[in-house]
């Protein structure tokens, strides 16, 4: 089963030119990347490309998928298993290397929604604090 306990990420939030950034230690960043199954790349080198429409979709899709998967408390392998797709395929999608077709994205969304519901159900089953 997926872990439901969330640990805090030690980070700082800053705002530069109206854009908000989150600063984390490199070791934390690398651990998060590992957990998310995404490559951390060379520090400060990879600037996102906003010129190509297709590339933009793939990047935004990849990032959103990773965020959704983590919010559903699933590892990459577990989501691939539940969605019935090959783990290597999911890995390529999450790294923005491939554009999945509608059917594949639908399988992923259905599996993540189900996991989110399970997570929410298990959260409401937690014993309530007494004498608040």
């Amino acid at each position, binding site marked *: 089963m997926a872990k439901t306990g969330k640990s805090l990420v030690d980070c700082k939030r800053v705002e530069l030119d109206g854009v908000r950034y989150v600063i984390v230690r490199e070791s934390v960043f690398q651990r998060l990347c590992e957990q998310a199954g995404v490559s951390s790349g060379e520090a400060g080198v990879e600037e996102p490309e906003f010129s190509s*429409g297709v590339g933009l*979709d793939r990047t935004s*899709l990849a990032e959103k*998928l990773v965020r959704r998967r983590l919010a559903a408390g699933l590892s990459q392998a577990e989501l691939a298993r539940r969605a019935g797709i090959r783990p290597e395929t999911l890995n390529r999608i999450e790294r923005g290397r491939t*554009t*999945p*077709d*509608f059917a594949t994205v*639908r399988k992923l*969304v259905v599996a993540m929604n189900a996991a989110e519901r399970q997570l929410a159900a298990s959260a409401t089953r937690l014993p309530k604090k007494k004498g608040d």
Partner: protein
Amino acid sequence: MVNPRLAAPPSPIRDRAEVSEEVKQIVAERAGRPAVRIKETDSLEQDLGLDSLDQVEIVMEVEEEFDLHVPDEVANRARTVGGIVDGVMSLLESARDDTP
């Protein structure tokens, strides 16, 4: 000569304008803009900036709203808001034809 199917009492099927309004409402929520600013000619990707994840979620909401299943190949063809409306209309019509 009257086709018996045409003579049948009207089903509670929604007309195109109504379907269009509901689809726009669903799309608007995903696109983060008011429904009145959504046009049928808007491209989901280019005009509204919706990626395939958004598009899948829109289709799933549409399925729930209209109580129908949108086959993947129909969903794949819909590139615009109007394309979704057309898909829903033809699915609603074939569903009505299948249930006498």
